[in-house]
C-alpha cells in the first residue's frame, strides 16, 4: 500500500476537482505523482504544464524515453520505471535495451543518436554533469534546443522517481517489465 494514496476525483475538494477536470480535459491523468500533486492544486497545475511541455518537445519520443528510463531507473522509482518501460516498448525500443537499462548495464545501441542520448542521460544521472567531448557531440547531433530539453527531461524524471519512491506509489500489476532489484 502506498504511503500516501493518490487522491481520487470523488475525494477531491472543489478546488482540487477543478484543477483535475481542467487537466483531464487535456489528457492529464492521476497516475504516479500526479495523484499526490493534486492535493495542492497549484502544484498539480505546475507539474501538468511541465510534463505536457516535456512530452511535446522536438525531441523524438524514442530519444525522450531513453532518457526517462535512465533517470527513473537510476533513482529507483518502481512505479515510474514500470510505466516508462512499457511506454518505451510502445515507442519501438527493443526489449534488450529496456532490460539492459533495468539491470544497470550499458545497452547495445546501434543508432548513433540513441547512443548519444543514452550517454548524456547516464552521465547526468550518475555524475550530474556532461564531459566536454560528449557535450560537443550531443550539441552537434541534437542542436542546442533539443539538448536543453533532454537535460530538463532527465532532471525532471529523476525527481518523478524520487516522488513515487518516497510515497511508495503502488506499481500497476500489469506492467511488462518490473524494476529489477538493486
Amino acid at each position, binding site marked *: 500500500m502506498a504511503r500516501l494514496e493518490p487522491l481520487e476525483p470523488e475525494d477531491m475538494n472543489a478546488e482540487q476537482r477543478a484543477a483535475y477536470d481542467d487537466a483531464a480535459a487535456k489528457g492529464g491523468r492521476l497516475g504516479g505523482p500526479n495523484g499526490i500533486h493534486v492535493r495542492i492544486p497549484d502544484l498539480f497545475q505546475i507539474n501538468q504544464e511541465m510534463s505536457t511541455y516535456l512530452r511535446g518537445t522536438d525531441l523524438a519520443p524514442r530519444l525522450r524515453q531513453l532518457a526517462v528510463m535512465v533517470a527513473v531507473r537510476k533513482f529507483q522509482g518502481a512505479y515510474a520505471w514500470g510505466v516508462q518501460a512499457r511506454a518505451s516498448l510502445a515507442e519501438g525500443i527493443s526489449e534488450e535495451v529496456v532490460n539492459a537499462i533495468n539491470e544497470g548495464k550499458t545497452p547495445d545501441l546501434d543508432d548513433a543518436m540513441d547512443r548519444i542520448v543514452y550517454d548524456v542521460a547516464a552521465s547526468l544521472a550518475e555524475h550530474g554533469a556532461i564531459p566536454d567531448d560528449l557535450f560537443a557531440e550531443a550539441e552537434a547531433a541534437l542542436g542546442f*534546443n533539443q539538448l536543453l530539453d533532454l537535460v530538463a527531461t532527465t532532471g525532471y524524471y529523476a525527481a518523478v522517481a524520487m516522488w513515487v519512491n518516497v510515497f511508495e506509489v503502488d506499481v500497476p500489476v500489469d506492467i511488462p517489465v518490473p524494476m529489477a532489484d538493486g
Partner: protein
Amino acid sequence: MARYQDFSPDVMTDHQRAVYDDIVSGPRGRIYGPFLVLMHNPGLASALQKSGAYVRWQSSLADNLKELAIATIGRYWGAHVEWSVHAKLAVDAGLDPAIIDALEAGGAPVFTDPAEALIHEFCSCLLETKNIDDDLYARALSRFGETGLIDLMATFTHYTTISLTLNSFEVPAPDGFKAPAFPHGRTP
C-alpha cells in the same frame, strides 16, 4: 568555451517576450542564472519559473528548512548558481554559516535544530541511497506533515531539474555571489 549564449531580451520571439514579461514583472524581477539558458526554450522557462516560484514563495516549509533543502540538493549535484545563491539565502534565513561551510567542504554538518537535522538527513538519504526507510518517513511525516513533505518533494523536482541544467551548460554563479569551491557536477 562557454556552452551557451546568454539569453538577450534585444531579440525575442512572441513566446519569449510573454515569458520574459512574466518573469521580470514577478518577484524575480530579472533574468539571471539558469534562466539565461532556459529562455532559449520559452515553454521550459515558463514551467520552471512557475515551479521555482511555488517552491520559493508558496511552500509551507520555513525559510531555513527550505533553503537548507535547496543547498543540500545543490551541493549533491554540484550546481554553482544554486549553491551560491541559496547558501546566502540559507544564512539570511538563520542557518548557522558553519553548516553551509561544512556542506561546501563536503563534510558532515553539525545541527542544533532538530528540524534542520531531519531535513538534511532526509535529503541526503534520498539522494545518496535513493530510498527513505519507514522510520525516516514516519519521523519526517510527523514533523513536517503531509503538506510539508509534498512541498519538500516539490523542492527536489525543481532543483534537480535546475541543477542538471546549470551543470550541463556550466552556468557560473551570478555577479555578486561567491563562486563555490567545488567543480560543476558531483564530487566523487
